């Protein structure tokens, strides 16, 4: 097969390219240029492109760099900023996967004559009957099925995930065996367009005015702190929040940017029994799930999955078997099959209440 491998410069996609080459495929590597500004996250900087290019050279593969900076700005960065301004908590990596890596890149690959696109994601393509599904990678700690939760069957049928059946250690060992200089490169952390040295507040503050707010303890009614940017405070957040007068931890339960007010409460008062979704955001891997279907749900990249029942009605929601901390509006919940909890069934975005 003629396969386009998306190479980030990291060890996973480096090994993916090597494995496909060894399997006898006609492999071409491509690195996406997404962010035009400074980057120290370990993904997509000029240094990372150089790593990807060198790996391709060592493997004997042609390598190209595709410029998607404009599309990335419009479809990932601007929505990220807008969502934060509206008090939501977006996941830009999911948006990038959805609109750029698994959409625009796939269309381009087809136009350029490729049979499939491959990436180094820790996930697997599973077949049930003649249908394609996304499944978890074998390395629990590195499983990336969550950020790929929106992929449609049409995409999955043209996607190759060579390293999903390997642990991270096995991937690094293979990279070393192939002679790749990225074998011990640290994994990229956080969002590629936010410099770790500067942080989200600095990035957002360069794009929108940030709103300072008082932190009010619902239990006592009194102010227990301040934040310089309400737009960056997330429902359920504990980090950066002082304890209450009773010595107990406090968690964010409500953010009202317009009123400059963040409310915090004790954990037990925070727990919710359901997550409500934006109906338009629901996607399903096979037939749409129905009212009453039981699923396993996960709402962060490496969070522990919980079980619940999907309900429709006035709004789509997941009624949890056990109360859990709230999920911030804008975040994604991925559903896995109850009878096969490695298999992705669908995904949805949590609605603002």
């Amino acid at each position: 097969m003629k396969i386009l491998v998306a190479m980030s410069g990291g060890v996973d996609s480096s090994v993916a390219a090597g494995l496909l080459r060894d399997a006898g495929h006609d492999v071409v590597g491509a690195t996406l240029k997404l962010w035009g500004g400074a980057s120290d996250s370990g993904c997509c900087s000029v240094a990372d492109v150089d790593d990807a290019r060198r790996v391709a050279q060592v493997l004997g593969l042609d390598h190209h760099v595709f410029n998607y900076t404009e599309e990335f700005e419009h479809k990932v960065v601007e929505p990220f900023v807008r969502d934060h301004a509206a008090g939501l908590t977006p996941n830009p990596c999911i948006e990038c996967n959805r609109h750029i890596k698994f959409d625009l890149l796939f269309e381009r690959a087809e136009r350029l004559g490729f049979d499939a696109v491959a990436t180094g994601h820790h996930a697997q393509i599973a077949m049930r009957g003649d249908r394609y599904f996304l499944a978890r990678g074998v390395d629990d700690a590195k499983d990336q099925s969550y950020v790929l939760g929106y992929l449609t069957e049409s995409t999955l049928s043209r996607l190759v995930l060579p390293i999903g059946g390997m642990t991270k250690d096995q991937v690094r060992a293979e990279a070393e065996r192939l002679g790749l200089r990225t074998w011990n490169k640290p994994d990229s952390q956080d969002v590629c367009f936010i410099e770790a040295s500067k942080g989200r507040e600095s990035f957002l503050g360069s794009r929108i005015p940030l709103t300072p707010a008082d932190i009010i303890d619902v239990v006592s009614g009194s102010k227990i702190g301040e934040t310089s940017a309400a737009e960056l405070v997330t429902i359920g957040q504990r980090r950066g929040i002082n304890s209450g007068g009773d010595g107990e931890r406090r968690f964010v339960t409500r953010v009202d940017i317009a009123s400059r007010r963040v409310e915090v409460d004790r954990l037990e008062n925070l727990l919710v029994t359901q997550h409500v979704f934006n109906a338009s955001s629901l996607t399903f891997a096979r037939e749409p799930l129905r009212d009453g279907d039981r699923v396993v749900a996960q709402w962060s990249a490496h969070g522990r999955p919980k079980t619940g029942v999907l309900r429709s009605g006035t709004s789509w929601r997941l009624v949890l078997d056990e109360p859990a901390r709230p999920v911030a509006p804008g975040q994604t919940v991925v559903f896995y099959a109850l009878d096969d909890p490695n298999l992705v069934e669908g995904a949805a975005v949590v609605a603002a209440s």
Partner: protein
Amino acid sequence: MSENLYFDHAASAPRRPEVLAAMEPWMSGVVGNPAGSHADARRARRAIEEAREVVAEFVGVDPTGVIFTGSGTESCHLALAGVVQRHRHEHEHTELIVSAVEHHAVLASAELLASTFDDVTLSIVKVDSDGVVDLDQLQGMLNEDCALVSVMTANNETGVDQPMGAISGICNSMVPGGTPTHTDAIAAAAWQHLPTVTATFDLISICAHKLGGPVNSGALVMRNPVPMDAVMPGGAQERGFRGGTIDVAAAVGLAAACAASERDRITMADRCEEFQTQLVSAFSLIKGVAVTARGARRLPGHVHVTVEGVASDELLFLLDQEGVRASAAAACSSGATASSHVLQAMGIAPELARGALRFTMGAETSKSDVDELIRIFAKTVHHLRPPA
């Protein structure tokens, strides 16, 4: 599968055999340091001075005006930074004027100077839809604080010529004593008679590898003395303008490239102008393809187009697969096609600029190459833009 169809001469021109022959003796064995006093040093020094005379003749200046540099970029940076830094020592305020379509070698240097020094201001002259400098705006910008005006002789992306006489006329007349001028002649050098075209400009930048010489070899040529400091002082080589041991092979290579280029220039320009006409006609017939600055005076070897609804990345990929080597705008440091500041300055819509392509020809380009290019380009565009 076609033979290698090299249409990227403006990125780098094929190395001429006479250049290789000229450089070879200076690539191995003992090559004396030209600054020394012994026989080997003197031999090296002589080669450099002979090279200097050839380059001087190529540009039409006195040999004392030729400063060898390590690249065209370095030559441009020396002109801008060297002049600005000297000016700053003697003036309270320093203004720098460059056109909006300059190569990054000039623009980045200018921007760095303006952002580094509080007393340096950068003014950018806009261009019209063909990319030609707005002479009225330039006139309005000139004042006594101006240290330098830099406008390229012809644009490396589009091939469009600038009205050199008119520009220098304005620069000489607005302020008593005139304003020093610099021109990046790197793209123009292969196609135009520099002694004529840059006759009225004070500083001229050229480089070897656009003429079929080696990379890492350029020159800043001073037609008229302009107060200028060294950017790289070192051992005060090149009369104090550029420190560092002169690479004899590079200087000799530049000279050989200049001489060969001048020898071939008129024949090459005439031939390529016919090819250019043929390409422009053929490309214009392809739906969705527009020839950039079609009505403007352009270098004969350049054909620049935009393809509607298609990305340069994809065009280049497929062309490359068929053996056609071309480029789009400048490559940025990552190797990705950057969006062109030149096209933006010309007011070309981003959707069109996204599908920009540049084909540039040279001495070995043949009629059959051009015919093949037309066939392959049409096929590629049709593949990416299927008729509705």
